[in-house]
């Protein structure tokens, strides 16, 4: 009984995670510039990928698999913001065109030596 409930919960988590992944991809296509796209990819992507990883132990019901999945999710959650931050920083310093912003407090403070 408990096993069946866990399996159904895992199925729901898998589909919801896949849906978030799809929304991340739609966001990357639809949003107007790099920084707004980064919002979609880093948040929805991390949540979607993490949900799919957590669905695996719910379906297989194995302790060591659960531990590995949790470690994988922790790793994903720790590294996604770091890579998003690095990419945002690198592309802001290499191209000066922030195309679509209402207010830009970084723009006029940009270090002229860079």
């Amino acid at each position, binding site marked *: 009984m408990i*096993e*069946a409930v866990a*399996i*159904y919960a*895992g*199925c*729901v988590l*898998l*589909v919801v*995670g*896949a*849906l978030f*992944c*799809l929304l*991340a*991809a*739609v966001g*990357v*296509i639809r949003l107007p510039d*790099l920084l707004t*796209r*980064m919002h979609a*990819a880093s948040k929805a*992507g*991390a949540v*979607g*990928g993490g949900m*799919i*990883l957590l*669905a*695996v132990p719910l*379906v*297989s019901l*194995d302790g060591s*698999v659960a531990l*590995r*999945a949790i*470690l*994988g999710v922790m*790793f*994903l959650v720790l*590294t*996604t913001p*770091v*890579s998003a931050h*690095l*990419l945002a*920083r*690198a*592309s802001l*310093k*290499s*191209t000066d065109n922030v195309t679509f912003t209402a207010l830009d407090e970084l723009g006029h403070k940009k270090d002229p030596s*860079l």
Partner: protein
Amino acid sequence: MTPADAVSLASTIALLLLGLALLLSVVRIVVGPTLGDRVLALDLLTVLAMGFVGAVAIRTGLTLYLDIAIALALLGFLATVAFARYILSRRVAGKQQP
């Protein structure tokens, strides 16, 4: 619906959704327009591939696939860091030799 049916149905739906997502991020890689956009889409592509491998792990019941998914996440992170450093260094090199 038995649990086995549910797993089969859910993994089919998830694989379809992820396939569509992979296609969309490939479109962004091709369209661009800047290098940053392409790197971002590649980063998303590795996360999506990780999700795909996870869905395959659930479908086949082989949890060994989970290790592949985690290794893929690690690889995607390192690739993005390397690309970010490349974008920064390209800027510096371009400045030295205009």
